[in-house]
């Protein structure tokens, strides 16, 4: 079953290493930025970098990039549900 679609895409060592290096650089950046005081902007920047790192882990380490459409869509739905959980709570806590 060599050409079977159920066979998972394989990442080469080189690709994985590249992803690792970018993740380490991003970690350095986010720690470095935290020493610079930018008031309100620190949190969105830190979270933005975290999102970027998480995307790298998901897409390459976890092969999400090569998965079927069902997994991609359902993953996004999960993230969407999480976003609703947090944002809808703010209809309450932000306007109390």
């Amino acid at each position: 079953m060599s050409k079977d679609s159920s066979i998972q895409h394989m990442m080469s060592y080189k690709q994985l290493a590249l992803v690792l290096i970018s993740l380490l650089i991003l970690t350095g950046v986010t720690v470095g930025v935290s020493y610079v005081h930018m008031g309100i902007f620190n949190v969105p920047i830190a979270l933005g970098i975290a999102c970027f790192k998480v995307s790298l882990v998901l897409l390459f380490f976890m092969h999400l990039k090569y998965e079927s459409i069902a997994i991609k869509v359902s993953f996004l739905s999960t993230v969407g549900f999480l976003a609703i959980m947090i944002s809808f709570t703010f209809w309450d806590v932000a306007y109390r």
Partner: protein
Amino acid sequence: MSDVKSFFDTPAPAHLTGIKAWLLTHDHKRLAIMYLWAVMFWFTVAIILGLLIRIELMSIGPTIMGAKLYNSAFTLHGVIMIFLFIIPAIPAIFGNFILPIQLGADDVFFPRLNLLSWYLYMLGGLLAIVSLFTGGGFPDTGWTFYVPFSVTTNHSVPLTLTAAFILGMSSMLTGLNFITTVHRMRVKEMGWMQIPLFTWSLYATGWVQLLATPVISITLLLVIFERAFGIGLFDPDKGGDPVLYQHLFWMYSHPVVYVMILPGMGIISEVIPTFSRKAIFGYKAIVWSSMGIAVAGSLVWAHHMYTSGISDTAVFIFSLLTYLVAIPTAIKVFSWVATLYKASIEMTPPLLYALIFIYLFTVGGLTGLVIGAAGTNIHVHDTQFIVAHFHFTMFGGAGFAFFAGLHFWWPKMFGVMYNIKKAYIAATLITVGFMFHYVPMFVLGMMGMPRRYFDYLPQFAQGNALAGIGGIIMVIGLLLMLYNLVMSLREKVVAPENPWGGVTLEWSVPSPPPVHNFVTAPSVKDYPYDFSEVLKKAAQS
């Protein structure tokens, strides 16, 4: 069909014998039967508890129990009915039995995980029993476990919470199993729009189970942590906000009412076309409304909290969103009614239950609009009106759908037919009792009688007495129904392969089915509710 060995006579895995063939089985049908008995046990316990509660309320002052015992009794009734009966009933029993067959598969995708789910269910039930006799007795918090009371009461809350946690896990794993099965185990010819509606509804339910259940898991864990370590996450003295507990709790517990009702709607969508001998009206609309309910149901949780001190903005938005859920629900109801229109209806017990379902569920849904609107909600909040609404949707809805399913698939599961006449009598008794039981509660609620009180003022006496009598009639009906079903196993009136003239795949296999379900390869119709062959056969005979 005596030439085919049924799954009752064929252990799976094959080397198991005796009791092990049941306790270690991987067969989805055996697991369904095991769930059936366990669920029925809890259902009976909770019915009796509910009856005791109503008898207590039949007269003013302590009648058969005191205030403390009453608090534990209604909590126990709620916890059992929700976590041990309605949530698992339809998915775990009929889902396990029917879903793989409707898809043309020989089992669910993860059979061993399925067995694990059953054990988790049993363990959760066992812990609930243990918590009755340990600590300060069964919790007196109500099934909602609201902080701060659940943190401070000396009753054995942590154990009950652990039980609920484990039961949630069992339900979640069942959902996971069904989703994977629907995606990967369909026979090749079956496209998404050829999946029977019961399976579709379980698929939508699976997503709600999977995504909502973890929220309750973490919430219950937090209450356990609070009791153990006194962190103060929900304690205003320590900077916490108790309303956030309610947010988290309803983030799960609102979607979960759709875990209870969606599979019920699925059963009705099978029963109605079968006895109308007619393709279901709006197949695709029903499919999408199932998914629509699953999505919309997770947007509206704060409508349980209008009087908790949430912001006016939140009240406004959640009230608006709540009305959205009415749309997909109404689509289903109209589709069922349209299916019945000009159909050649054959009356049977499952259809009778389905028709009663439509009526009771509609009443439940419409009273839901009364409490979904922020203004009227404040008048009836935390009164008997809420109790009546909830039981109309959950018992009149999910419960009656469960009974419809029970009478619909009983011959398939056991290969025997129950006494039709007794089934009609039972259904009538249950319904009449139901109306006398719950309608007075609507009135009592409008008059201002609060829920969860074990005593009341003289002006509520008449309504409570009436509700108690209704409750007794209803319980007699329920016991007759169960008795009738159990007796059918003894009298062994053999049921044919397809007693109702159904067209989905489960009616093409022997009753009860063999261990791998299909004797010949399943043949999928272009459209799942094509009755032309059934009608042709009927015309010939």
